[in-house]
């Protein structure tokens, strides 16, 4: 009888220890599981938004320019020179500070 009681107490004790350890282990998971719920929308949005945003900022302009064929680039340069000559001739006809500093529509600079 004493042996039976001892085994029963030991079993109950073992179950209690297991339950306590289980509870302690699952509490950490619950805390971690609650964190991603706070930022699920931010992470993918930042991922997809980052490339176009950077492109708009002009950072990869060099990479884009390299995609332009040399012939097209030369045409842009010549167009720029023509526009600048026209702007210079316009300034010389009626010299004002405003016409000297007028903005260009050249694709080389815009």
């Amino acid at each position: 009888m004493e042996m039976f009681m001892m085994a029963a107490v030991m079993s109950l004790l073992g179950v209690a220890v297991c339950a306590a350890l289980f509870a302690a282990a699952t509490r950490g998971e619950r805390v971690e599981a609650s964190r991603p719920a706070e930022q699920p929308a931010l992470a993918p949005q930042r991922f997809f938004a980052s490339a176009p945003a950077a492109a708009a900022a002009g950072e990869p302009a060099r990479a884009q320019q390299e995609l332009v064929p040399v012939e097209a680039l030369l045409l842009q340069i010549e167009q720029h020179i023509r526009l600048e000559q026209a702007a210079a001739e316009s300034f010389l006809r009626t010299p004002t500070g405003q016409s000297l500093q007028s903005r260009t529509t050249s694709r080389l600079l815009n």
Partner: protein
Amino acid sequence: MTATLPDLLAGLAEEEAARVLALGRHSTLPAGAVLFNLGDAADSLFVVERGQIALTLPMKVRGKEQDVLIEERATGQTLGWSALVPPHHFTLKAAALVDSEVVALPRIALCAHLAAHPAVGYLVAQNVSAVVGQRLQVFQTMWLREMQRVVELSQA
């Protein structure tokens, strides 16, 4: 030649203009033919009789030298005024954009004629000054505009 006189000879009587042009040698240039290269000895001044001549400067684009169009000269216009300005070296390259004809006026013969006919020389010098001065003013303005952009970029 067109009914109107070339810009080099503006203001001259027709007979006087004909005498100046008679000093020259007519050349035909097929499209793409080079009239002169940058740095060549400038021994002749050219008047475009027909066609279109491109004036280009070499520019390095993606590591390779390319001819970039700076100006075009059409019928009746003059090019190659470096022939009259020391040290007599062309500062641009000239090539025909389309089939063209030019009159090449040798500097020595032209200067001798102008010295012998001071009234003609005076008008021709005025016309050359107009070509040179106009280009100087245009390029000075272009340079100022580029400098303005450099200043803006340096402050950005």
